[in-house]
């Protein structure tokens, strides 16, 4: 169970997020500058909300009331950046290994690099560097790297926006499959309404910090 209700002052408006998510995929949709990435960064701990609380699996990672602010590295959140943010000086395998929990601290012992690489169909790329692979492959590596940390929540910031239509459709299907396999909540930011409809069990439309919750794709189409 993931719950977040917080506010964050931005230069031109105040952002308010009120999210509650059991499992499945929540799609945050809205135009550029609506505050979508800021919401993800506040959840991950890359930015600090001005007020509110964030709970992952009923454990508080941020609370302005109690002064809780768990450091990013202890939040157990996977984050896939818009530009993938793969480490250019490391091979695909080293990138994926970077966040692997240390020995004795592994909740799921069956989770090996090979398994994750195979699951995302990038086993053959393990010795390549990020500048030697395509955009779609980079996205798979970024996903593998985030999943390798065994997160309790996965945040995806416009993960498919830089890809061509074919790669995009394939990866959309795989994201849905991954979510059912991993059984952790995904929060996905997109500016594409159709993508939100296709992937989101829950959809939140955001405009200048104000959110409108629409549970179901058909309603969203009506609201447009």
């Amino acid at each position, binding site marked *: 169970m993931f719950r977040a209700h917080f506010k964050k002052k931005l230069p031109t408006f105040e952002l308010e997020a009120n999210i509650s998510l059991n499992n499945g995929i929540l799609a945050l949709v809205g135009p550029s500058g609506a505050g979508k990435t800021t919401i993800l960064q506040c959840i991950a701990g890359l930015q600090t909300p001005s007020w509110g609380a964030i709970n992952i699996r009923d454990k508080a990672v941020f609370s302005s009331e109690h002064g809780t602010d768990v450091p990013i590295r*202890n939040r157990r959140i996977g*984050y896939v950046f818009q530009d993938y*943010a793969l480490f250019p000086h490391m091979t695909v395998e080293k990138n994926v290994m970077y966040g692997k929990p240390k020995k004795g601290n592994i909740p799921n012992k069956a989770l090996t690099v090979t398994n994750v690489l195979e699951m995302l169909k990038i086993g053959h790329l393990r010795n390549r560097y990020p500048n030697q692979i395509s955009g779609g492959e980079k996205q798979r590596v970024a996903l593998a790297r985030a999943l390798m940390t065994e997160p309790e929540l996965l945040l995806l910031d416009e993960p498919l926006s830089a890809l061509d239509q074919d790669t995009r459709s394939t990866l959309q299907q795989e994201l849905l499959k991954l979510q059912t396999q991993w059984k952790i909540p995904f929060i996905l930011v997109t500016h594409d309404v159709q993508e939100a409809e296709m992937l989101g069990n829950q959809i939140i439309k955001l405009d200048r910090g104000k959110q409108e919750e629409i549970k179901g794709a058909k309603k969203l189409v009506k609201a447009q």
Partner: protein
Amino acid sequence: MEFSFVPIILSLKVALASVIIVACSSIPIAGLMAKRKFWGKDVIESIITLPLVLPPSVIGFMLLVFFGKNGPMGKLLEQLFHIRVVFTLEGAVIAAAVVSLPLMYQSVKVAMESVDQNLEKAARTLGAGELKVFFTITLPLAWNGIVAGLVLAFARSLGEFGATLMIAGNIPGKTQTMPLAIYFANESGDTRQASILVMIMTVFSFLVIYGLNRWGKGSQQRDSRGGGNNV
């Protein structure tokens, strides 16, 4: 007069020691300055960069006041380690380190600032603490700037003259480095010794600049190959 290699050896010793000191101090300082905001940051930065613009005589004078027999650091070093800095090779090392620090610092800081912050953020979301981020992401990606800074600092240390003369003096075989040997050989009419040393210094400096330029172009090409590191 017979040609003496001693100034060359002394200069290399001084430059090497100076580069080690400069590397150990400038990398952590540049890391802090590039990534953190704190009160008084601009003042500290100005102090580090000051030797770049001050005349060598001013730096030499300040070092004498600070490290002299009655200076605060001079007294401390004498009492704690029985080390005297004035008129010793250690003095020459300190002078070389002070004047080459700004070059190394600037080079490292610019390189660290240009490391994509998203990569550091990504490392944090993957469970890395600040030290792991620094050693596995920031430092390796700023490597080009660090190497360039090391080479420049080494070359600058080798060529240090004014401040060295004031704090370490000109003791042949003890503190007389190459630039000092050239000056005093010329003063005493030993043109042969002076010209050989001048040639060595010029060729060495040329090679440093040439090598850095070539290496810089090479690393640019490496980066742009295969679409670049456009992560």
